[in-house]
């Protein structure tokens, strides 16, 4: 199994261009509107009467369970979103013209940028925890849903013609077709993206539990709040406990969800490819063998099947006569006019919202901060590459070592490294280091594993014959690295580096600002700008910051990563 490229850099099948601009404007206008609307509501919002978080480790299992549950609910919501949004986009060309670019922008938005929606969610249920829970879950959802929806959309679009024709020939209704053809076909890619989403989700569920937006503070019982409290109290012991608890939670998730999912992905594969990882899972075996579980599955199956004979099969339409073509044309015009109108309105609204509060000079300043963060990301990815590429090649060339290391790397990638931040931050405070430099490594702490992981996969996919050919020709040392090892892992490395860089942008919001007790450390950068604006409840600046960051990510993907990846793919991939 190999890592798939983040969807944001894949060559999209729609024509990028004006629709990107439109989606961009729409998303941010929506945020601005939400933030603005919610701003007026904060006054009437009663503060959460949450019980104070206790640092007693006895409460930790409970907290951890709540964190894990939030994660699960968010994953369920993401699946629901995936099945509806992506299906709609795949079935209707017209819907796709708006939905797909929208999704592309949404996934470029730094996830914590969505935290400005917290106020909105709290306003839904004034004075009650439900709103806060919803807000936290929504944050996790935003870290999971986009790439899943994208993967599902692409799978639906790539169903082979003969399968579609077979479905039509056997009169499958839309519901049956969905469960019998579309979902199974999309499953391997979707499962892979769910795993990626889970990794990201852990990071943000921890961040989302204790978040302040202006005067609004959400403190939900969970590992994240426990950590926040521990930071206030400067308790390294408590942080140690929290890390241990999270370790256990992720291990459990890994065993009962990740492993069975990856193992079961093999069923759905179109053709049998030699699996790199042994797809074995005790949990999956248990599910297959357990009568109770299979009964549950059977009930689920029959509920699904209830709808099978419903819904009609789409008739093959004869080419339409001129008159109806004319009316179709009118509908098209009306549709695009409506979209255009909304976009224009939104653009005007967004521009006014930002520029009413922020001088134009500051916009330039924010872009400058963006370049600072870009510099950090670039340097760190380069450093991480120099470290992990040779190690990854070494491991990947040794199958036995690969089998041992692979699950560990996978696990490390899922671990929310923000739990480790306090340790680093306390060290910076203690040693009086320059936060501008020393806060930076936090950005790649969690994302560097993608590089290692991919390089291992790349190195282990170099065929034995190619290795023998190299040895037979006496290729050794630097020549071996230059001519054989590095080119072999390059496309895989690219995938890892793209994922890592995307993740690092996201992490910058948490990594460029850090607290330890009453010490407040800030590194100059776009992440810090957004974080500070968010905690000050300054919506125009938050929106500006997020918009600039999303712009950076989109532009980088389009102008740098995508062409580079396409080149690597062309030149280095074994056909």
């Amino acid at each position, binding site marked *: 199994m190999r890592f798939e490229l983040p969807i944001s850099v894949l060559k999209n099948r729609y024509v990028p261009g004006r629709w990107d601009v439109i989606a961009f404007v729409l998303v941010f206008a929506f945020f601005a509107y939400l933030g603005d609307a919610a701003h007026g509501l904060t006054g009437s919002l009663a503060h959460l009467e949450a019980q104070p978080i206790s640092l007693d480790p006895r409460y930790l299992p409970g907290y951890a369970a709540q964190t894990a549950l939030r994660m699960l609910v968010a994953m369920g919501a993401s699946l629901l979103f995936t099945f509806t949004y992506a299906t709609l986009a795949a079935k209707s060309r017209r819907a796709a013209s708006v939905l797909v670019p929208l999704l592309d922008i949404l996934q470029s938005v730094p996830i914590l940028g969505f935290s400005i929606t917290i106020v909105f969610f709290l306003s839904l249920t004034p004075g009650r925890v439900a709103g806060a829970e919803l807000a936290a879950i929504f944050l996790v959802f935003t870290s999971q849903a986009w790439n899943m929806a994208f993967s599902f959309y692409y799978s639906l679009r790539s169903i082979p013609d003969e399968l579609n024709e077979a479905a039509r020939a056997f009169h499958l209704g839309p519901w049956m077709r969905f469960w019998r053809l579309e979902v199974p076909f999309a499953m391997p890619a979707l499962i892979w993206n769910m795993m990626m989403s889970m990794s990201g989700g852990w990071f943000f569920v921890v961040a989302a539990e204790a978040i302040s937006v202006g005067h609004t503070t959400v403190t939900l019982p969970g590992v994240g709040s426990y950590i926040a409290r521990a930071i206030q109290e400067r308790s390294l012991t408590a942080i140690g406990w929290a890390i241990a608890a999270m370790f256990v939670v992720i291990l459990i998730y890994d065993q009962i969800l990740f492993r069975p999912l990856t193992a079961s992905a093999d069923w759905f594969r179109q053709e049998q490819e030699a699996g790199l990882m042994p797809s074995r899972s005790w949990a999956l075996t248990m599910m*297959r063998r357990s009568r109770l579980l299979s009964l549950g599955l059977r009930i689920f199956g029959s509920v699904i099947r209830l709808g099978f004979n419903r819904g009609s099969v789409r008739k093959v339409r004869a080419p339409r006569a001129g008159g109806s073509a004319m009316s179709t044309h009118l509908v098209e015009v009306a549709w695009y006019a409506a979209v255009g109108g909304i976009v224009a309105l939104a653009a005007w609204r967004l521009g006014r919202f930002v520029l009413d509060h922020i001088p134009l000079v500051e916009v330039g300043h924010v872009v400058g901060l963006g370049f600072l963060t870009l510099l950090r990301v670039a340097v760190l990815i380069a450093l991480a590459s120099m470290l992990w590429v040779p190690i990854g090649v070494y491991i990947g060339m040794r199958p036995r070592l690969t089998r041992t290391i692979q699950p560990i790397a996978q696990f490390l990638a899922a671990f929310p490294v923000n739990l480790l931040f306090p340790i680093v931050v306390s060290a910076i405070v203690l040693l009086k280091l320059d936060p501008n430099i020393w806060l930076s490594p936090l950005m790649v702490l969690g994302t560097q594993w993608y590089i290692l992981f991919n390089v291992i996969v790349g190195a282990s996919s170099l065929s034995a014959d190619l290795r023998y050919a190299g040895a*037979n020709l006496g290729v050794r040392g630097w020549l071996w690295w230059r001519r054989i090892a590095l080119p*072999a892992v390059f496309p895989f490395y690219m995938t890892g580096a793209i994922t890592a860089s995307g993740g690092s942008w996201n992490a910058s919001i948490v990594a460029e600002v850090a607290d330890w007790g009453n010490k407040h450390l800030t590194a100059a950068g776009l992440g810090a700008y957004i974080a500070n604006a968010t905690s000050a409840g300054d919506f125009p600046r938050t929106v500006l910051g997020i918009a600039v960051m999303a712009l950076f990510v989109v532009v980088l993907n389009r102008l740098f990563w995508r062409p580079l990846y396409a080149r690597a793919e062309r030149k280095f991939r074994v056909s």
Partner: protein
Amino acid sequence: MNANAVALNLAPLLAVRSVGKSFRKPDGDELVVLDNVNLTLRPGEIVGLLGRSGSGKSTLLRLIAGLDAPTSGVVDYQGAPVAGPARGIAMVFQSFALFPWLTVLENVQLGLEAIRLPEAEMRKRSLQAIDLIGLDGFESAYPRELSGGMRQRVGFARALVVHPSILLMDEPFSALDVLTAETLRSDFLDLWGEGQLPIRSVLLVTHNIEEAVQMCDRLLIFSTHPGRVVSEIPIDLSQPRSTLDPRFRALVERVYVEMTAKPRGEARVGPKNERFAGTGIGTTLIHVSSNLLQGLIEAVHAPPYNGKADLPVIAEDLHMELDDLFRVAEALQMLRFAEVEGGDIRLTEAGGAFARSESDDRKHLFARHLLTYVPLAAHIRRVLDERSSHTAPKSRFSDELEDYMAEDAAEQTLRTIISWGRYAEVFAYDDQRQVFSLENPA
């Protein structure tokens, strides 16, 4: 140039002495791949190593090239034992093994870069090799832009450019279509005959008998499990050889006979390594689909063969590779539907009956033979009958099989028995739950 006569008087270029190779299985037992292999390679000759796939021929080539070390014995090259990748022994691979990110020229140059030749010299020699092997104009192409035949030409050029004295060829033509393979073979033979190649001798591994007879001065027949040289056949026809020449045909026939000879009662290695058809549940079953089994029975039964066929003839008739045909024939022999000997396949009485019956009777006959002659099938059926649930997990049998054979062989054996068992309807298997049962899904 038929170098045979000259070769006999010269000291061997390469000598493989009592070489053995075994791998340790996870349970600690040894799996013997090569056992006491002896061969010599003299200057000026092409020697063919002919054997079934899985007989360890490729492993032997790797040992000779110094890419792997033998467990016992020694490989002497020009009087010194080979340790590590040997300079002067070049290799051509079945899979071509070209580096996809290097152009044709870069691929060819790689071996020269490794010996740090000056740039100009490197370029001159590479272009010469490219020229010689007929790749002019393709210097800047990437391997994926080339057809299979052109790719293998690059493989040859890359091996020849380092001026090796021995060329090892590991089934170099078997990934190519028939026409391309033929062209490449005769091009190679022309260059060899004209003395244009830097190499002094060639060791060719193949499972294609005609190819071996056409190219080699001497053939070594390799046995399976464990691999060893069982006989030697000199080919003293002059080049170019015509496949229609009666002497050529006679040699092909003779090789067939040698290869289908009943295994002699030689001492075998390892007490548990039962490898003769139907002698115990530890027999490795090669996967052959029930369709193929039926197909071959029908083909042999039908005119013009009427129950007895010459293997080379029917192989050609059915457009089957010899190796694939052997597999099917051997499975039929194990099931006592046919006998293979002396290069012929002959249906047994049961085989004839099978060919004459209809679908359901065929299944019954097949089931009876399966349970009688394949102990593993009988064993699985017995276990299922004895258990009150009439089910048994696959692991129950794979653990048992792994006492006798390597993990992947056990997996293949089970896959085979599942497919045969399903066809015969003697047991059922649920792949999702990995459970054998007596349930009939209908």
